[in-house]
């Protein structure tokens, strides 16, 4: 479903993604793990047509995102690391807009919106503005929204960041369920090793833009002679702490807080 070969992304002299190759077969849950700044989000952005790769091969469901962007976009759903809902609109309006963007026929749109929102326990709150939602509810809504157009692939970029254990648990249960019943291929990144171990069929570990290991959680543990995925992860990536520079978006959010908007 996803084929990546020798993918490179350079920013000037800095190589964010350095000749990585992997493939994700249909119906698999694939976890992409790595420390901060390892190149996870950059890779997701290239896979989802938001960023132009510097070089290498890329295939989503047999299509090249660079050449057939629109067709590729129709085929996947994505939950970004940062929120991407419209807070001034209601939950249902957010779903409705998404349905229109993805050309879902009105009848299907209405039915599927209801069933997804019920499944993610949001139907009762459908007429509330999203800015009134808790972090967990927003996340659930984003996942429900990403599934509205029945995508073949679901990208989840650190979907459980900042959520409590209950919500995380519920979220992964949903994702596994969807993978089982609808056969959705899932590509996820997370910092929580226990989550990756629990839901992922296969894992790739990326560090400094390079894939340092890939395989099933069992294989990774065997390979490093460790007993938990967390230890395996540390053995592969070292224990130095990585700092990411604050982006203009982060700085802006800080300012927006001062201004008191939302």
């Amino acid at each position, binding site marked *: 479903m996803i084929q990546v070969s020798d993918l490179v992304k350079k920013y000037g002299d800095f190589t964010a993604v350095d000749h990585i190759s992997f493939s994700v077969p249909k119906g698999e849950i694939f976890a992409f793990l790595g420390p901060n700044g390892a190149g996870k989000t950059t890779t997701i952005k290239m896979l*989802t*047509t*938001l*960023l132009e790769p510097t070089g290498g091969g890329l295939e989503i469901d047999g299509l090249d995102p660079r050449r057939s962007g*629109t*067709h590729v*976009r*129709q085929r996947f759903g*994505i939950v*970004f690391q*940062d*929120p*991407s*809902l*419209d*807070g*001034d*609109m209601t939950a249902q*309006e957010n779903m*409705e*807009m*998404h349905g*229109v*963007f*993805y*050309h879902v026929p009105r009848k299907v749109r209405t039915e599927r919106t209801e069933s997804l929102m019920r499944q993610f326990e949001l139907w009762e709150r459908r007429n509330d*503005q999203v800015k009134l939602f808790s972090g967990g509810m927003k996340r659930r809504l984003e996942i429900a929204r990403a599934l509205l157009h029945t995508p073949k692939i679901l990208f989840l970029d650190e979907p459980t960041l900042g959520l409590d254990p209950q919500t995380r648990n519920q979220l992964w249960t949903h994702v596994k369920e969807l993978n089982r019943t609808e056969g959705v291929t899932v590509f996820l990144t997370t910092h929580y090793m226990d989550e990756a171990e629990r839901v992922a069929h296969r894992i790739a570990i990326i560090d400094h833009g390079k894939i340092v290991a890939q395989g099933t959680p069992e294989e990774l543990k065997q390979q490093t002679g460790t007993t938990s995925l967390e230890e395996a992860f540390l053995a592969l990536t070292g224990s130095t702490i990585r700092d990411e520079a604050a982006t*203009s*978006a982060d*700085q*802006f*959010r800080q*300012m*927006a807080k001062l201004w008191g*908007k*939302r």
Partner: protein
Amino acid sequence: MSVIYVLWLRELKRYVRSRVQIVASLGQPMLYLLALGFGMGPIFEKAGQGSYIQFVAPGIIAMTVLFSSIFSGMGLLWDRQFGFLKETLVAPVPRIQIMLGRTLGAATVAMCQGFLVAMICLAAGFRAHDLAMLPLALGFMALIACLFSALGTAIGSALENIQGFQMIMNFLVLPIFFLSGALYPLGNLPAGLRVATRLDPLSYGVDGLRSTLIGVSHFGLATDALVLIVGTILFLLLGRHLFSKIQV
């Protein structure tokens, strides 16, 4: 088409839902109209130019539409930072449709604001000279709204964050307003100012409104309309270009 429609509708819904903002944004035009309108009135009349309220009201309406459309267009910046922009950019939709939907939405919102201020002008004693010209006046309001929404969207696409906002305000929006002849007649100006006012697209908008509402024109209706239409097309093209360059 439906993509343009939902994005247009979204701008409208957001406008209607932010009642506090609607009221707040009426404060400035009211201040201009009442303080300036009545304050400058006596001296304007002594100079033999008639009622200043009559003269300045079209300028204040144009100002409202200018501010509102530029800010709505720049609402793109908020969407960029709060993430909704990504949701639209990753959708299987040509970017031009996203840009058009947003721009038309911003223009409609600006029209609503302009209409509200027009009501306030009526309450302050402003009277249109010829009711048959009202549809044309609305047309000019729409042109001003489209032109500056397109400019706002273009600016919003080019800026990465709100830090540049103050710059835009002081070095673009306020000059556009003050050099447009919204507050003073364009005749007999010093040479420098005359050139500046002729380069300002809002001058033609104010002039169009003035000639349709109070029957006083400096450039002539045809010139006004032509400049505004050409300006709108140019800014839309610029906006399309800059919007297509956005990376998130």
